[in-house]
């Protein structure tokens, strides 16, 4: 298996970076759906990192998304910063915002989840109220587009796709590295018993704080990407609850304890939602997603990817 791993990855890279743009590039609608689903996928990945490694349920990813969007938009609009570094700083801004949540790490389970939910509301209200900076409910428009790099226009649909794909791939890699590292092991042990892990000398609060910072950074940067991709921003959109709802459902659907699950879940859920559910019920199509979340939690809480992997493995064993 091991020696094939690089081959699989190479094939996946060719498919994602060459075949998908070539095949779907002409269909702008489909391409925009793919970009949006990868945006959701990036948030789902960040949410799952916090949930799986940090053991924390966050109902506040929208706060990080919104902060990242605004930081990047304002840096480019008001200070004339180039878009790509501004996107990175958007992630940093979201991380800084998450510093305000650090005291909440003392709380566990439902208390942490609800405290984060409260934080998300606070950030939304602040963005609404500080009109001088954020443009208030009217929003910001004319946000700079993604630049042209080496003669390649990143602001076009295919360019945007390549940017978000690369962001997500890098996030996957970071997630993988963290999980493989000493920290990943400590976090896994913490999931079993936090007290026992503390006893053997692991600073569990520090580790959780780091996961929160990383998750906030990822979500903020995805938000920053989205801002420069759509070039418009308003508080209700940037801090909207769908940036929390859909990634959670996607991560649960795919399997939040796996690395690829949240991403696969996001692409599947977003596509099905937009192509099918939205046509069936134009207003309130999230009702089906809600039902899906409930069903998944009851019947298959570990998500579909682990189940599929299990099936696949079972078959190959039977053949051998």
């Amino acid at each position, binding site marked *: 298996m091991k020696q094939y791993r690089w081959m699989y990855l190479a094939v996946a890279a060719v498919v994602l970076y060459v075949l998908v743009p070539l095949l779907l590039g002409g269909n702008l609608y489909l391409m925009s759906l793919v970009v949006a689903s990868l945006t959701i996928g990036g948030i789902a990945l960040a949410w799952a990192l916090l949930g799986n490694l940090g053991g924390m349920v966050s109902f506040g990813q929208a706060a990080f998304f919104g902060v990242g969007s605004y930081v990047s938009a304002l840096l480019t609009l008001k200070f004339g910063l180039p878009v790509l570094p501004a996107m990175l700083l958007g992630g940093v801004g979201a991380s800084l915002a998450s510093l305000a949540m650090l005291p909440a790490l003392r709380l566990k389970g439902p208390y942490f989840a609800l405290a984060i939910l*409260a934080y998300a*509301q606070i950030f939304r209200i602040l963005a609404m109220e500080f009109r001088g900076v954020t443009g208030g409910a009217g929003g910001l428009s004319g946000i700079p587009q993604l630049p042209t790099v080496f003669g390649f226009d990143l602001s076009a649909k295919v360019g945007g796709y390549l940017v978000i794909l690369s962001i997500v791939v890098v996030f996957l890699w970071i997630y993988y590295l963290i999980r493989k590292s000493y920290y990943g092991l400590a976090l896994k042990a913490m999931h079993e018993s936090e007290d026992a892990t503390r006893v053997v000398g692991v600073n569990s609060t520090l580790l959780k704080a780091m996961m929160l910072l990383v998750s906030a950074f990822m979500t903020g940067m995805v938000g920053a990407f989205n801002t420069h991709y759509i070039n418009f921003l308003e508080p209700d959109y940037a801090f909207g609850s769908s940036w929390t709802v859909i990634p*959670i459902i996607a991560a649960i659907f795919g399997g939040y304890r796996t690395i690829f699950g949240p991403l696969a879940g996001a692409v599947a859920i977003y596509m099905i939602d937009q192509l099918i559910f939205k046509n069936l019920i134009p207003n309130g199509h999230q009702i089906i997603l809600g039902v899906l979340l409930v069903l998944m*939690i009851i019947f298959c809480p570990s998500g579909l990817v682990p189940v599929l992997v299990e099936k696949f493995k079972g078959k190959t064993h039977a053949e051998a």
Partner: protein
Amino acid sequence: MSELILQSLYSGLLAGGSYALIALGLALVFGTMKIINLAHGELVLLAAYIAYMAESMLKINPLLAIPLALIVVCLASVIVYFLVSKIVKDRELNSLLLTYGVGIVLTNAILLIWKSDIHSTSNEWFQQSLVLGSLYSMNSEVTFFVVSLVLIVLVWLWLSKSWYGRAVRAVASNRDAAKLMGINPRWTELISFVLSGVLATFAGVALYSYGVIQPELGSALTVKAFIITVLAGAGSIPGVLLGAVLLGVVEALTTTMFSSALQELTGMLLFLLVLFVLPNGLFGANRRRG
């Protein structure tokens, strides 16, 4: 100025009544099953919309919608209970996600049935002002404040005096020991969900009678109820009432002195302050959270 402050203290007190009903429902379920029902605010909102439907379609007083709302909301609450009890592992975390999902379903169901418009009562008597010295309120606010107080006292009596009420408290303090004493924990959990539905119904009808309702309000209500239970600390009914009044007063003062947009913000800040400075709540027993 002092009159304005006095007036906001009064309005806050009145709002605190129905806040306490919402919070008590949430706290009851949290007490017996150690789960937060994130769909609780949506249950309240469901009752409010049933009252709206009764008034707008059947042209009757929203109060007459209470029986129907009781049936629907309690049924929904029981469904939430059965769904939660189906969870096999990791109940604390999964129940949060599950009830979050139920909340999404209810919000969108409300959106589908009643559209996204904002509604408030058109009942004249409810809207008439009631003057108490220099203090003003609507008839509906005072009516439902009294109703809330009566309900809270009834729940308190039930919990402390009746067999089932004591069973609920027994299960809340130690499920296994209660089971050994011949209490069926599943029954008591179910009862706490039904009672939580009853409280949500009255809170919802109250909400419609003096406020405005819209489909997205549910999660804000849940957060408010949770803020109050945190303010109150674990297992204290007078604490819930005081916490609710405190939240109501803080919100009313913010509206008077700053703007209504910041109203939610101060509630949240109060919540975070209490959570970090007084983690046992203002009136709670000496118990650590988690």
